[in-house]
């Protein structure tokens, strides 16, 4: 048994043993769980995938005369203005008024991080407090006040693989799905994925310090659609959509290597978010969780056209192989989240910890372990 405080002492001295969630698998095989748990202090995880439920709050500062912005666009992408006078929220999945699905909120966020000038246009109604009715100017990360990412749902704990049963190609947030079960796409980093390595949220909770977009960030709340009650395998790992986290971090400190605007053909825009979480190896149980391998992590197959339902699960070793068997036919599989960049994130976080630049946190309060997801039904207006 180790405490987070003890692990932090080792980190400060530079003696902590840190490995990635891929490396721990082999170590556990060679040394056994018990010995590996004694030796290893921290396991780092990583993921780099499109996460639509992302965005950023920006305070632009006041103009003279001042304006209460009522409608705002950033590079012609609408931003939310229903806050105080010059606070705005730009959502990753918002589309450009001029370029449609080719550019959107995710691209604005990437351009902002890159230090580029962003065109700001806003209108106000004009009041005694805020007489100005219109403003056209530019903002960038050096001349605004606060700019912080706030992502209501990131790091989905597992995600179903996608297929298309119809006769036509369909364009989805799971990529282009070819007709007649022509391909299967999948979107997690498997054995490197943060919440898969702490399946019951023993160490990851509200307040946990994380890697977010190349900077330090925090878990700020449970994510939207957090669903810990999802079906799980014997190892505790969910086999479908389960836990999620809301995260926040300073946008000005982030890097475009780990935050990237994305567009999905005929679907819309999104944002690639790089996220990594360190997991303290408090005991053998935590070591067992982090030593889970792709062969042991299963996900459910879903028909994105909604016509067929399957009782089929694949593990991530099968999906990673490039082909899986679907009803006797070999079907091409393709990833949508970048494993190589996820690996880079886990290694970067490992490096930060080894060089005493990042210490671990106790969660302020745990993520809910019982919760369910509601659907939106058509209800009678009373």
């Amino acid at each position: 048994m180790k405490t987070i405080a003890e692990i932090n002492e080792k980190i400060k001295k530079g003696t902590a043993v840190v490995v990635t969630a891929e490396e721990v698998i082999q170590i556990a095989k060679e040394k056994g769980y018990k010995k590996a748990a004694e030796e290893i202090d921290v396991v780092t995880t990583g993921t780099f995938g499109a996460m639509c439920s992302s965005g950023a709050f920006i305070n632009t500062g006041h103009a003279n005369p001042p304006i209460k912005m009522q409608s705002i666009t950033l590079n012609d992408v609408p931003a939310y203005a229903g806050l105080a006078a010059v606070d705005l929220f730009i959502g990753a999945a918002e589309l450009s008024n001029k370029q449609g699905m080719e550019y959107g909120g995710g691209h604005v966020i990437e351009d902002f991080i890159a230090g580029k000038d962003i065109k700001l246009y806003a209108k106000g109604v004009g009041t005694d407090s805020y007489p100005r009715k219109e403003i056209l100017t530019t903002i960038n990360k050096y001349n605004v006040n606060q700019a912080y990412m706030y992502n209501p749902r990131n790091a989905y704990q597992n995600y179903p693989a996608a297929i298309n049963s119809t006769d036509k190609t369909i364009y989805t947030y799971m990529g282009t799905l070819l007709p007649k079960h022509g391909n299967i796409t999948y979107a997690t980093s498997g054995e490197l994925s943060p919440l898969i390595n702490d399946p019951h949220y023993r160490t990851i909770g509200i307040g946990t310090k994380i890697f977010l977009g190349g900077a330090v960030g925090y878990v700020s709340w449970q994510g939207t659609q957090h669903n810990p009650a999802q079906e799980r395998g014997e190892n505790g790992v969910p086999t479908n959509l389960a836990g999620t986290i809301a995260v926040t971090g300073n946008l000005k400190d982030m890097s475009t290597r780990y935050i990237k605007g994305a567009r999905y053909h005929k679907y819309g825009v999104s944002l690639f978010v790089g996220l990594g979480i360190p997991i303290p190896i408090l005991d053998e149980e935590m070591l067992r969780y982090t030593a889970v391998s792709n062969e042991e992590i299963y996900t459910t197959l879903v028909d994105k056209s909604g016509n067929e339902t399957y009782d089929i699960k694949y593990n991530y070793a099968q999906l990673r192989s490039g082909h899986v068997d679907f009803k006797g036919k070999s079907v091409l599989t393709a990833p949508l989240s970048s494993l190589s960049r996820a690996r880079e994130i886990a290694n970067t976080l490992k490096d930060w910890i080894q060089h005493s630049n990042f210490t671990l946190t106790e969660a302020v309060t745990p993520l809910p372990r019982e919760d369910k997801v509601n659907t939106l039904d058509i209800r009678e207006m009373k």
Partner: protein
Amino acid sequence: MTKIKIKIYYSRDEIDKPITYELVKKYDVMFNILHANINYGSEGNLITEISGEDENVKQALTYLDENGIRYKKYTKSIIRDEQACIDCGACTAVCPSGALTMDKNAELKFEKDKCLVCGLCIKACPIGIIDIEL
């Protein structure tokens, strides 16, 4: 035998001319259409492989030249900005010939000789870094 990949541009006036038929009939070349975007009454283009005897393929291109039909010959297939590529793999989902695959290190591998220049990967790329090099 020669095999080339070309993009034939159809102007509004040429859209109703049986260009492929003429080429097949006159020069005995084979067409393998990779991508077509032709709408009657407006402009269009056709990406195709043309194969046949060396001399016949040459003459087929001369025919296009002489009839003022614009075309571009693909010599290098698709290109991607390797520095900007994030190795997500979305393009590998649609590549019909297996030219784009993920390698052992989960990095995108492109095998040029397998590429059909169909262009599906261009639209499938979420960060827009694949294009056709002419």
